[in-house]
């Protein structure tokens, strides 16, 4: 009886597979990609609880319990790393998130197609500059001895400023350059959302005597909201991840006090001093916090706006 049932359901599976073969084929690369590159490596996170060093296998090394987590929590830098990470990422979220929405709205109001396209393309360009080149440009332009910016300051009789070496300048530079590099690119998704808004709504509004401003306020912005909220949730879920490569390129011991974040610390200790287990423990801690943030914000958003990721 049981066996017969099993055969039956197996036949079913076969039938489904044959029926949906193209769909399965279509989705397979993505599933395989995620499985191979995002799920399988996850088992490596177990070294956070082990005393792993190069040459040992992940399973073969000794268990260390929560030793590495304790070491991190007791570290003198624990507080500073957390606050630097949160400050840097929330400031860049606060400043850069609205910029691409505003840019998309402004662009939407341009009626000349050609002009719109030119502006859009120009705004994407910085996105394609690699970070290394970008930071290289910054340190050249801002160099206190021969940088353009300081030459201008000097010509106005001002003292040159060591922009890259002053803690006070680190955050503005980091966030400012980040906005410059990403606002155009990030606005693409809003442009897509704008196109998706039903033109009939605008027509109806115009018949009812709405001004352009009112159209934007009551049709365009509400139309963008679901996308914006969705992206905001995703961004908040990444609050503990800041652009680590860029900080590595930009910081120096003189700016550690504002620039040193969890990921750079993991890099210095985990990779440079080859304490892999410690690095993995801190990284895992970071991911867990991110995960909790994501879940709770999704929940809040579901309660208040009915928009959620799932």
């Amino acid at each position, binding site marked *: 009886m049981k066996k017969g049932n*099993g055969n039956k359901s197996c036949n079913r599976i076969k039938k489904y597979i044959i029926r949906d073969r193209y769909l399965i084929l279509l989705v397979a690369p993505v599933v395989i990609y995620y499985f191979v590159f995002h799920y399988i490596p996850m088992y490596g996170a177990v070294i956070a609880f082990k005393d792993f060093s190069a040459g*040992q296998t992940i*399973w073969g090394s000794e268990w260390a319990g929560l030793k590495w987590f304790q070491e991190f929590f007791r570290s003198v830098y624990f507080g500073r790393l957390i606050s630097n990470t949160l400050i840097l990422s929330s400031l860049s979220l606060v400043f850069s998130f609205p910029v691409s929405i505003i840019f998309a709205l402004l662009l939407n109001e341009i009626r000349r197609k050609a002009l719109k396209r030119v502006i859009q393309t120009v705004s994407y360009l910085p996105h394609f500059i690699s970070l290394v080149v970008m930071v290289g440009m910054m340190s050249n332009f801002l160099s206190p*001895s021969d940088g353009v910016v300081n030459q201008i300051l000097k010509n106005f009789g001002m003292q040159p400023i060591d922009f*890259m070496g002053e803690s006070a300048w680190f955050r503005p530079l980091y966030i400012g350059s980040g906005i410059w590099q990403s606002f155009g690119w990030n606005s693409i998704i809003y442009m897509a959302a704008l196109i998706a808004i039903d033109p009939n709504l605008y027509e109806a509004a115009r018949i009812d005597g709405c001004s352009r401003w009112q159209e934007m306020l009551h049709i365009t912005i509400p139309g963008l909201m679901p996308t914006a909220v969705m992206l905001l949730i995703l961004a908040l879920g990444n609050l503990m991840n800041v652009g680590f490569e860029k900080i590595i390129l930009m910081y120096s*011991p003189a700016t*550690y006090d504002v620039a040193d974040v969890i990921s750079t610390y993991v890099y210095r200790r985990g990779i440079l*001093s080859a304490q*892999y287990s410690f690095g993995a423990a801190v990284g895992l801690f970071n991911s867990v916090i991110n995960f909790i943030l994501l879940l709770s914000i999704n929940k809040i958003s579901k309660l208040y706006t009915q928009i959620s990721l799932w």
Partner: protein
Amino acid sequence: MERFCRKRLDQERIYEKRCKKGLSIVLLYIIIFSVLLTGCSSGKVNTSDKSNSGSRIPLEERTAAQYQLPLVDEPFTLTFATADNSATAYSYTQDLPAFQELERRTGVHVDFEVTPSDQYNTTMQTRLAAAKELPDLIRLPDDPIRYAKGGLIIPIDDLIGDFAPNILSLFKERPDVRKAQTAPDGRIYTLSAVVDARSMVNLNGLGMRKDWLETLGLKEPDTIDEWYEVLLAFKDRDPNGNGKKDEIPVIAVNVNGLYKLAWSYGLHLALSDGWYPDENGKVVYEWISPRMKDWLAEMNKWYQAGLLDPDMNSQNRDKYTAKAIGDIAGAAVSDMTMQFPQWNERMRNDFPNAKWEGIVPPKGPYGDRMMEKEQPTENIHYGITKDCKNPEVVIKWLDYMFASEEGKILMGNFGIEGLSYVMVDGKPQFTDFILKSEFGSGIAQASLGVNGSFPRILMKEMIEQRFLQYDGEVAQSNKATQYYVPSFPRVLASKEETDTYASIMADITTYKDEMVIRFIRGQEPLDNFDQYVKSIQGMGIEEAIAIKQRQYDRYMKP
């Protein structure tokens, strides 16, 4: 209709359950399989470790048969991972002339796996963490003992005892070299280049524009205070005579260069990283010593007066060199002294009077004057990996290219006879190919693949000949070498020592680097120095000092 639907739903639920069960079985298999796999490979590591242990005759009493060329009967390919050539246009992967010659003689072909030298360590660390399919021979990215304990590199003392007569005699002649290679467990896992021949000619020292001194009618500064006066004059009195105050009195690639000025305060920061024994042999962490405060105060004074390189925080060597040969820098702290005559040559066309020259370190307020001498060996270790199929050939090859008389001349020093050197009275003598090269003798050597990132022994004759043409600089070097003090001996640490040391020092080093630069730049008032000392003490420096003390004692034991 509704019933039918429900039935179908039920069936789908069953099917779902069954699938879940199937999936979990598959997962279970994957887990079992991977455990088996890892179990096997860890077993392999252990056996390779065991096979070499047991009672061994000490190396001093061993004699190995002299090599016979070619080293192998059949062509043999050796894989070697190392940092790429310092002359970036001549990658080792291009089969450079010296390696061709080496292959002709030994029959061993070298297959290089190279990474640019500034990325090498990070790349190799990641690769070693994965520990799969390693090349036969690798340049280790950091502390070798960790990799030895992990079984990634194999002990080579028995191999040396059996197959490497020349390395054996090197160890006999130079016990300090052997000590530097000996692991805490008494075994040898790695080889390093023997480089101290250069420290008597090409010094890790200070340089100054002597012509600027003449232009301003100043005499060579002898004390730290006189340095300050001279540098102020460089800044204010327009020694380059272009009517602009564009002079940068002291240039430094980064703050580390300034550590050489701490010599005048009796601090060994530059080459010993602040670890040094006092008169009683007790190891001290000089970064928190009272003298440190004096040095920081002086550097802060210099910084406030605008004497220090403003780009010290974010520049690379190219930018630094551009300043040095751009006639705007007065003193340089980030170089080997033989750099100076080479700068002069590069400046010849635009600034014919420019004269960079080495200068003896200044005397400090307490009468200290010294220079730290380089270690006998380079702090770069080369080891044979567990994946090496034929360690015997590799060690024979190393013995020939690293320590034999012929190999030493070919790979480490003079290169190819007839091209880069000729024999005069039975001694190698560089030709103009090296000495008159328009790119400098170092690049000319490197373009052949000579004197690069592999085990080598530098010969004093080679260094002298290369720099003979700079007799003025050689004279300066001779003046300065009398102030040499040995730097803190580099001792291989045990895995436990490394682990503890690394976890203590990671935070301390971050904090120390940050505070030193902030003190110098005045972002942190020097009144907080005591606070800084207390913080470092609170971070567990005592334990790190104890580790350093143990290592020092181990080294001093005969």
